[in-house]
């Protein structure tokens, strides 16, 4: 049968294919630059990137900048999440408040906040603070909207049942509302962490003297394509590590859900 006869490809095979494609791409890139089909000045070269990154690691140069970026990302992410959850709860509890501020929230959310980065740098300086504010401005809205929706979508029967079972407002938040909203917050967590990193890097890129954004921006100003690409690769690796960690964290908090497969 044509439809059900699709052979299931094993995980190992998939991994092999991925490696082959990646290896082929790198090989083609290397060969193309060595034979001068394309100018390595513009696109760099895999071996040059490897040398660059190895050099950064050996000198410890990259860790200092990566640390700064992560610091901004994490502080901004935590504050933005806290603020988003708090305001989400506030608005879900006081409907009038939500109605008054609704147009403002929508307008602020629609505004491309990345463009605000120069203003933040002007207000909060070249250091940590301007980047943290930038990250908060990105993370806050993602978390706020998912918390607010999560609380409004809480099953009415669950709330009524808890009321009848004798829950006071504190019980209600702790045992019903917060866990319910947490599932929404977690579902947007990977998005908001991604935003946090973007916020920090863009902030650094536009005005800073340290961090991955600065490394990339500096390389760019030197017309050093290898530096720019190596910086991006390091960031990419960091994102992958964070994403794996978040998946694990999500699995820990979703133990009560059926495995979606």
């Amino acid at each position: 049968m044509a439809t059900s006869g699709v052979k299931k490809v094993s995980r190992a095979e998939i991994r092999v294919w991925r490696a082959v494609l990646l290896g082929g791409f790198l090989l083609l890139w290397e060969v193309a630059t060595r034979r001068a089909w394309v100018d390595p000045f513009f696109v760099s070269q895999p071996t040059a990137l490897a040398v660059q990154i190895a050099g950064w690691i050996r000198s410890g140069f990259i860790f200092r900048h990566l640390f700064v970026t992560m610091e901004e990302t994490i502080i901004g992410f935590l504050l933005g999440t806290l603020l988003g959850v708090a305001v989400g709860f506030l608005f879900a509890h006081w409907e009038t408040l939500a109605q008054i501020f609704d147009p403002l929230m929508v307008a602020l959310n629609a505004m491309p906040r990345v463009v605000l980065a120069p203003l933040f740098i002007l207000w909060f300086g070249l250091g940590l603070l301007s980047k943290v504010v930038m990250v908060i401005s990105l993370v806050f809205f993602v978390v706020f909207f998912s918390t607010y929706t999560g609380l409004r979508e809480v099953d009415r029967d669950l709330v009524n049942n808890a009321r009848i079972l004798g829950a006071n407002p504190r019980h209600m938040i702790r045992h019903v509302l917060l866990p319910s909203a947490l599932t929404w917050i977690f579902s947007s967590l990977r998005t908001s962490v991604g935003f946090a990193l973007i916020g920090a890097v863009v902030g650094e890129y536009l005005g800073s003297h340290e961090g991955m954004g600065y490394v990339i921006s500096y390389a760019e100003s030197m017309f050093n394509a290898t530096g720019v690409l190596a910086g991006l690769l390091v960031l990419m690796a960091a994102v992958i590590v964070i994403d794996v960690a978040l998946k694990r964290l999500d699995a820990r908090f979703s133990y009560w859900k059926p495995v979606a497969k």
Partner: protein
Amino acid sequence: MATRDDRTGNIVLEQVTQRFPLPREDREFTAVQDASFEIGGGEFVSIVGPSGCGKSTLLGLIAGLVPVTAGRITLDGRPVDGVNPRLGFVFQRDALLPWKTVAQNVGLPLLFRGVDAAAARARVADWIARIGLTGFEGYHPYQLSGGMRKRVALAMTMVYEPEIVLMDEPFGALDVQTRNLMENDLLEIWTQFRRTVVFVTHDLEEAIALSDRIVVMTASPGRVKAVYTITLPRPRSVTEIRFHPDFGRLYETIWKDLKDEVRLGYERSQKGLPG
């Protein structure tokens, strides 16, 4: 368990009316109109009526989840104002907290009531054993069948021994066999504890098999059309009581009252009227 004073747990409804404003329409919808009846302490009363006749609304009003528009509801002589802690409610869809285990769910009302942990554990274990789920304490709701979830919901309500138990089509979503088992379990628990039960259902057979009395509601706006006393002997088994010679006679009498309302309710729902 202590036997209880039969004078507590009575419910009196006097001219109860409930209206909702209809969003986007400049009028109100009357869900319940001038409903009056009394339920004695320890009595098992079913409310039957066509879909949308306000049966569930009535339970919400008795529970104090929603304030009445007009009229009065009293529990043991005290007017209902807000949720009453002596009352239990089993919802149509089981309202278990999906992030808590069976034991945590059953223990929730005790936690809310500040019962100390050791006493709560013993009562939870006792009720989990009663509903036959010993060994499933650490399971989460998604891992249980519909019937098991219903049992947990029942234990969650009974664990704090409310004087009045309201049930809103609790077994509607179960298959017939599971449903009959649950009905028998419910009767057994009721016989043992003698709490007042108000049971909403659209299934007349179920109502007759379980109840002392049946309140028949009209199509919306829901009014009380008639109240029947079910004289079938107790203790009953829901599967066997159907063969009792009086069962068919009772069914026929009550169905005569109910069928016009069911037709009316159906026709209205076809026309897209609310309710």
